[in-house]
């Protein structure tokens, strides 16, 4: 009898100390393998902790829907989420404040301040930056050399260079060649591209937070109009008409088959472009995106990337938070950068000799670009960001396809944003 009791007590104790968390990773081929490996390392150091790695859905819409579904049901079945850089604002009320957990107050200053700011909602840190992303300009070094051009630093230079190369290559018998490919489909990716055009031309960041914390709709201005008109002029000249249906992969396919002089894309295209099957391997370079000519023009790449966030409904938030901190520590970010080409979010990793000696050394060169990346106004417009973004990319898309002129489109967009958010406008 006593034995049974002891066994029972032991079982109860074991049950009480066993902490299990479920972690939804991304969907890239190596995500689950990598996360499983890291989970095993962590569990080896923390007996009693079990981490289940779950592969998340592929498309961002599917993923957002699944997450919201869990939140709607206030379900604690998933403890640790990977969330897109535009989601912290929208999901903040379902996520814990990581500052309440051990280690975060000390660690936060080591991360890129822009991302930490993006992930901070009403003073609460709702996501720890896992890896980052920013828009880059890809250029064909061989073609620049062939036509004696240098890497363009302004959009005007890019337009001219793209036209020159396109005319030259077509004259040489490649009818499929285009000067510049980018993402012009009506989707979140167009918000990224268009924000770059607008911000780099001194046209602001759509909705901006003022110094006193109030928010202002700034999109309806001359620099923004000029930027969109410029982009619209590319369609059908240096960019195919079909670019208004392009997403990242469409642009990369044209680029990687050697049929484009310039491309705007994320860093992921770098490793693929140098792959064995690529027509452009070893022939291209990357640079910061060009800037405009308006007042306040600057280089601007849109901030992308993913964060780790802990559910408010989790039964073991401290374990999830601790594991998230482990995944984003220096060694693991280095590992991620070298083995999976994912951009670190800690500044110090870019200076690590191990990174500089690896195939991912190009990252270090662009530290300023990544650090200075422009965030989409997701936190400022929360919880309406996705709707605001849809208004924005629809307006831009209508300008690109010629349905609307830039001036009207932005005036209407301003009205839409006004009624959606209730923020005042700049004028």
């Amino acid at each position, binding site marked *: 009898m006593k034995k049974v009791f002891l066994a029972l007590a032991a079982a109860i104790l074991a049950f009480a100390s066993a902490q299990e968390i479920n972690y939804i990773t991304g969907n890239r081929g190596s995500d689950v393998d990598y996360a499983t490996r890291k989970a095993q390392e962590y569990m080896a150091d923390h007996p009693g902790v079990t981490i289940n790695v779950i592969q998340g859905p592929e498309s961002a819409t599917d993923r957002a829907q699944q997450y919201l579904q869990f939140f709607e049901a206030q379900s604690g079945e998933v403890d640790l989420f990977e969330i897109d850089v535009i989601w912290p604002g*929208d999901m903040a009320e379902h996520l814990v404040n990581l500052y309440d957990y051990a280690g975060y107050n000390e660690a936060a200053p080591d991360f890129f301040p822009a991302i930490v700011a993006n992930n901070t909602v009403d003073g609460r840190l709702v996501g720890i930056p896992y890896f980052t992303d920013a828009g880059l300009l890809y250029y064909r070094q061989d073609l620049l050399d062939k036509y004696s051009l240098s890497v363009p630093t302004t959009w005007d230079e890019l337009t001219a260079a793209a036209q020159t190369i396109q005319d030259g290559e077509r004259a040489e018998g490649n009818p499929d060649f285009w000067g510049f490919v980018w993402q012009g489909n009506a989707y979140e990716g167009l918000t990224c591209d268009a924000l770059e055009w607008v911000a780099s031309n001194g046209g602001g960041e759509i909705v901006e937070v003022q110094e006193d914390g109030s928010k202002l709709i700034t999109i309806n201005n001359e620099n923004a109009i000029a930027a969109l008109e410029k982009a619209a002029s590319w369609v059908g000249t240096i960019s195919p008409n*079909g670019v208004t249906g392009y997403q990242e992969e469409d642009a990369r396919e044209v680029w990687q088959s050697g049929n484009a002089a310039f491309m705007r894309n994320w860093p992921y295209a770098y490793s693929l472009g140098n792959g064995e099957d690529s027509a452009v391997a070893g022939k291209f370079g990357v640079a910061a995106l060009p800037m405009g000519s308006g007042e306040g023009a600057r280089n601007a790449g849109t901030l992308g990337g993913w964060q780790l966030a802990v559910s408010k409904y989790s039964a073991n938030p401290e374990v999830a938070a601790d594991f998230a901190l482990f995944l984003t520590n220096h060694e693991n970010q280095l590992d991620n950068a070298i083995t999976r080409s994912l951009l670190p979010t800690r500044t110090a990793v870019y200076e690590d000799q191990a990174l500089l000696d690896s195939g991912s050394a190009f990252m270090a060169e662009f530290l300023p670009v990544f650090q200075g990346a422009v965030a989409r106004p997701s936190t400022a417009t929360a919880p309406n960001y*996705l709707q605001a973004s*849809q208004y924005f990319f*629809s307006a831009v898309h209508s300008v690109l396809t010629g349905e609307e002129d830039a001036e*009207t489109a932005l005036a209407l967009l301003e009205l839409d944003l006004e009624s959606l958010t209730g923020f005042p406008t700049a004028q």
Partner: protein
Amino acid sequence: MAVSTKAPKARQLSDLARQEERTAWWLLFPSLLLLFLIGIYPLAQVFYLSTTNKRFASSQPTEFIGFANYRDLLSMTVRELPVQLDEAGQPVIEDGKKQYESWVRVLPREPLRYRAAFEFGFFGKRYVIGAVNADFIKSVWDTIVFTVVAVALETLIGLIIALALSRKFFGRSVMRTAMLVPWAIITVVSSLIWEWMFKSNRSGFFNALFDRLGWGDGNTVFLVNPALQMPSIIAIDVWKTAPFMALLLLAGLATIPRELYEAAEVDGANKIRKFFSITLPLLLPTMAVALVFRTLDSLRVFDLFQVVFGERRYSMATFAQFTLVSNKDMGLSAAASVIIFIILFIFAIIYMRSLKVDA
């Protein structure tokens, strides 16, 4: 009730009738149980939510707002567009056409802001249809056009396939297998295959083919150009679902007694007469059911629009999804779903009445 009014005869039969009725309900019981157990709560919830301002995954309190969601979705207005005048007061003419003012000037802004859904010309004047939620109105129109055209083509092609397969000919078994291929490929993937074939440059099949044939410049933008979007997506849907029609019609053909044809042959009827006097009327009940379900399915089309058009152009269902997930407006999304439900019901009743399937 019908039983009690036909007094004497009904009473005689009443024992039998009552037994028949009891059997019927017992036979229906498992189906109804399952449908109600799993289905009724989600369905009822949609109706309820459509009258609230509930936000998806939000702690914001939910309030009853009556029919405000329906008003936002359905408010429409028609306004005439004034002709654009230059400084001298003369109409502005470009490319030989009169230019009109933008809809922004004529559509009301208070209390609800209207946006342009469609513009059309009528008796030399130009009008704009404005809607508070122009995206929804456009999605309803697009979905109905899509459904009507696609279902008509599917039925026609399905009928041809079914009639062809019902006779013996060289290659019939190949054709039978071919017919199943489109159906067997998962919709999400087949949409991707077609999207890949419709690519906007010569790495896509259609542009490569047309280029070889000397049509177009090899950069036709099938899925973005508004004029080509509908034909393209209808082509995909017809490909995918004509076999569904064919299969059902084939089964319907099989139940037509052969003696009827033999009798008609004796009377000297030709093929066309046999088709219209025997095949079509006897096939009609099967065709009606197939039509009802194909119509309901394509009015709810989701995967196809989602993969091929994303947020460029909505079907009613992708609109509901967008409103829920991106806009997080659960009440509005539910109201859109209820409107979809009503539109489907109207279609269903039209079919029932005109084809007499529920008789």
